[in-house]
């Protein structure tokens, strides 16, 4: 087992890969009582076309199938559900699906061994049949109707449709009603058999637990399983154009005030010589400095009463950096003009950088506190970088104004998409 020392944080993450190929990460905190375990599958809603076993044939499955499997996996072969099992221990079990992966998670305070063993058992023991597929369709359709009634969801997916020509991020994670209706038992079995294999999964455990126990339990559990030969699936890579689909698009929905999103889409190939960890930290600092609560722009928009709320995020979506501002406003035209101008003059002062680095360092220290949020952060790092970042604090402390300006120069601020969600006219 490897001990990954997180430099400058006085924290250690334990790592091992069990013989069946599953990477396991453990962060121990014996000051708390609980243990949070997350078993993740590298399969999410965007993975709709794939090939396997080194062959060239692509398989296509309906949108929303990752989420569908997440629902079905809770049914156990003996007619009970995973929830029934965990109720015996009072443990909290649940799951979620994102664009990129599916996560089954568990919060337990007693009988850790039995709890973890069952997590590995129910996720890796399929028991699907037509009856349960049909039953679950109704429940999932209610779930997606619920999501469709949330205006932010409507704006989010429309905005991605304006940004991406080919990427599947524009489709709801649940799929649309017709996708759910058209999903068959065969589709589900195909995806499950291809992706639900220890080599395509990872386990993260955080809390009051002995890391050696976690590895031992996982190793022994998986050794007992008759695992099929790994099919080594490869997702279809889409060649996404650098340009946005629509520079501006307007929709209407159940909102009282207009909400809008504006994003700048930049190919990652622009940042070839910049370390990926640095790039993430630097772009985050750029966004918060130019559009966050300490920015002149936000203060100006508030003072002029041009907006009610504004938030700034940046994401890395396959081959692109996407920097997004979300605003609630009654004056979309004026706000869009200001935001576009700010994107064209992104900046950072030496004083601001120093302060932001100090503040972000404190935030990194606090990342290792609550066992659930530590686990979520670790999931994100494993998904993004393939492992835990050992020296995030060092990376942050070494960022210079020169690095920041280098990144700013490479941001393609002319390549923008704006999506406006207006109130419905009565």
């Amino acid at each position, binding site marked *: 087992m490897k001990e990954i020392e997180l430099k400058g944080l006085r924290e250690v993450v334990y790592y091992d890969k069990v013989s069946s190929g599953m990477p396991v990460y453990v962060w121990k905190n014996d*000051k*708390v*009582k*609980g243990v949070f375990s997350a078993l993740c599958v590298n399969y999410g809603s965007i993975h709709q076309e794939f090939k396997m076993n080194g062959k060239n044939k692509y398989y296509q499955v309906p949108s929303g199938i990752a989420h569908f499997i997440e629902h079905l996996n809770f049914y156990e072969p003996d007619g009970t*559900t995973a*929830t*029934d099992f965990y*109720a*015996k*221990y*009072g*443990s*909290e079990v649940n799951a979620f699906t994102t664009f990129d992966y599916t996560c089954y998670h568990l*919060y*337990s*305070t*007693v009988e850790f061994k039995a709890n973890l063993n069952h997590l590995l058992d129910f996720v890796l023991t399929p028991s699907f049949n037509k009856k349960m597929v049909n*039953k679950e369709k*109704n*429940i*999932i359709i*209610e*779930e997606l*109707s*619920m999501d*469709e*009634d*949330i*205006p932010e969801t409507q704006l989010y997916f429309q905005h991605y449709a304006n940004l991406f020509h080919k990427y599947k991020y524009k489709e709801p994670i649940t799929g649309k009603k017709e996708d759910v209706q058209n999903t068959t038992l065969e589709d589900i079995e195909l995806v499950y058999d291809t992706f639900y294999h220890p080599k395509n999964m990872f386990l993260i455990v955080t809390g009051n637990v002995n890391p050696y126990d976690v590895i031992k339990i996982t190793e022994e559990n998986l050794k007992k399983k008759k695992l099929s030969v790994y099919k080594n699936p490869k997702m279809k890579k889409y060649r996404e154009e650098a340009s946005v689909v629509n520079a501006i698009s307007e929709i209407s929905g*159940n*909102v*009282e*005030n207009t909400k809008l999103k504006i994003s700048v889409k930049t190919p990652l190939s622009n940042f070839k010589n910049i370390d990926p960890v640095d790039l993430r930290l630097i772009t985050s600092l750029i966004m918060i400095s130019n559009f*966050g*609560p*300490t*920015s*002149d722009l*936000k*203060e100006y928009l*508030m*003072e002029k*009463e041009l907006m*009610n*709320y504004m938030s700034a995020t940046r994401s890395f979506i396959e081959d692109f950096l996407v920097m997004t501002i979300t605003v*609630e406003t009654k004056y979309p035209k004026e706000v869009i003009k200001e935001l576009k101008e700010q994107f064209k003059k992104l900046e950072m002062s030496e004083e601001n950088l120093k*302060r*932001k680095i*100090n*503040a*972000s*360092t*404190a935030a990194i*220290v*606090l990342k*290792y*506190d*609550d*066992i659930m949020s530590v686990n979520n952060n670790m999931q994100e790092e494993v998904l993004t970088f393939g492992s835990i970042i050992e020296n995030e604090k060092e990376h942050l402390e070494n960022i210079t104004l020169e690095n920041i300006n280098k990144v700013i120069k490479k941001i393609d601020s002319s390549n923008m998409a704006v999506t406006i969600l207006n109130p*419905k006219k009565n």
Partner: protein
Amino acid sequence: MKYQKFEMDTYNIYTIKTNKFKNCHMEIIFYDNAKKEELGLRNFLVDMLCHSSKKYPKRKEVVIKLEELYQSYFYGVSSKVGNMVMSNFIYDFLNPEFVTDEKFLQNTLKFPFEIIENPNVVGNSFDERTFKIIQKRILADIDSLKENPTNYAFRRALINMDKDSITASSVLGTKEEVEAITPESLYTYYEKFYKNSLCNIYIIGDLDMEEVVKIISRNFHNNCLKNHRVEAFVENKTRKKELMVREPSSFLQSNLVLGFNLEKLTKSEMFTTLYFFDEVLCAGGLKSKIYNSLREENQLCYSVSSINSKYDNMYYVYVGLDKKNVPLAIKLIKKCVKDMASGKISDEEMNMAKRQLLTSLDIVRDNQNSLINNYTFHTIVGTPLFDELKECYKKITVKDLKNIGKKLRLNFIYELESSEEET
């Protein structure tokens, strides 16, 4: 964990010393009896005080100061708990152990009091610029209540139940009330709020609490004596026959709310048994009676929720579903409640609920905010501390739950009807 109370002349400081967390969490709570006509003012004031101050007149200056204090967070929340209104000024900061600056604790603890006690006031009036920003934001918040089907269905349901009850009032106030507030009237209210509200300070962290108390007492100048009684509970009217209301909406799903009066619950029933009852009936996830009936057996919905609004003496069940399934959902929910009142509760259901509640107690004991919340209501209303609660749950029987079931009386059934045509 070490719980301590420090009695100051005009307020108390409650501390929990624990080394479980790297973060420290403090809440300065002003509380009082809720007055319907003052709710909007009070919420406005809390927003106003947190936004800026005399020393930091712009929002960005407040945030810059918080960044200098190693990414501390400061914000305010107004809430209505039954008949009580609470204004919490919340401050999160890094444990000084991780900071080389020896004066960090002193400097960081000074900050929230500096903000609350020195607002940006000119003469007898809050500064116009910040006032306008906050007013506009609150008016937008009131508007956006309509955007969320759950929140809107609840608002409408409670107004239909009894528009004069404090339970039906929004903590934001109405648009008319917020529009009528002026920088002068807000300042007048600030003085009244500061003088009249009861005040407690709660703090959790790995800190020298004696030192913390000394620093707070140097920086907090709350010196008005108050000894009036705060009555947290609301007696909402009951009905002989339940009210049924259906209102149109443009949402895809229908949103159904059933409201039940809780009649004459004892304190012990309210603070312990009712949680157990709720766990078996609805809150216990997929294995609870209502969840199992609506989702697992009939596939009517994705999720169903309940709210144990004990201080309002109310209990609500809420579900979003297809319009055509509303009558069946009502029938099934009523049946589940009836089963509880007649004691149709299996040993398995009892054991499951008990285990889940005991685990939940272990989980919340690992969470700073939950620990502070539990200590707050323990000191203000007398709810049990988590450790006491554990013992109480172990003793609860089917008969206890049956008794609660008999004290639930259906008050209303409200449907915010979907705009979709029935299929």
